[in-house]
């Protein structure tokens, strides 16, 4: 029971942390030089 409560608390904390991360963006100091990945998306094909 005790460990069950701990697990539940951990779940809630993890969820809140994630939600906070998603809704409260922080200022970024660095602009990276990450290369662009091009995504080519298609439906159907003239094979």
């Amino acid at each position, binding site marked *: 029971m005790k460990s069950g409560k701990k*697990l539940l608390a*951990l*779940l809630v904390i*993890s*969820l809140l*942390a*994630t939600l906070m*991360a*998603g*809704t*409260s*963006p*922080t*200022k*970024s100091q*660095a*602009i*990276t030089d*990450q*290369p*662009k*990945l*091009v*995504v*080519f*998306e*298609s*439906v*159907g*094909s*003239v*094979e």
Partner: protein
Amino acid sequence: MINQLAEDYANQPVVFLDYHYDLAMDDGIPTYFPPEARWNVIQASEEGLGLTWAVVDSGRLHHRGAETEGEAVAAYVTMIDDALAQPARAALTASWWRSGNSVIVLATVTNNSEITLSPENNAGVHAIVKEPYAVYDTHTTIHPGLNGAMAQIPDLAPGETGTYLIVIPDIDPYDWENLEFIVLVDYQTAPGLKFDQLQAVFAQPTTQIMYLPIIEGRP
């Protein structure tokens, strides 16, 4: 032909994704339109044009209804080369882990554009499952996108960083070990007009699993 194109671009940062138009059908109701709303913009662009539909940069450039291989190759190469010449306008990292038949993706976006990303411009982070080189009757290439999901971006001003959780449900591949997860961030340039893509990456598998209750996100 798209398979050959993928081979031609194998040494460049280009990923090919092929969808089936009734992807993720559930009782006749599509649960995920690939690539969701941005695809609808393409559909509305020219009445009556059929497959093949192809987009880069979430639809910034598109082509519909190629009737010959030559026409398709010329159009697609032009689109891809143009997209390669565009700079990334976001920094994006993503990790994933499996939970049953779902995959959870955690993506961090730094908005390096001059646009605030929000529901007002339908900004979102998409995660799409690909099973490379798998052959499905429902797909016409060996670059099948099996399913996907997206997280809306609530508010991300230029220079800000946000982290988003995406749950991709109901993944049923031939081989779980052969999956790739493509994560991309995009927004709509104006109401009713095309979408544009800031950046995309392959999500990396992680063992640092966050134990979360599974809440299915907006498909």
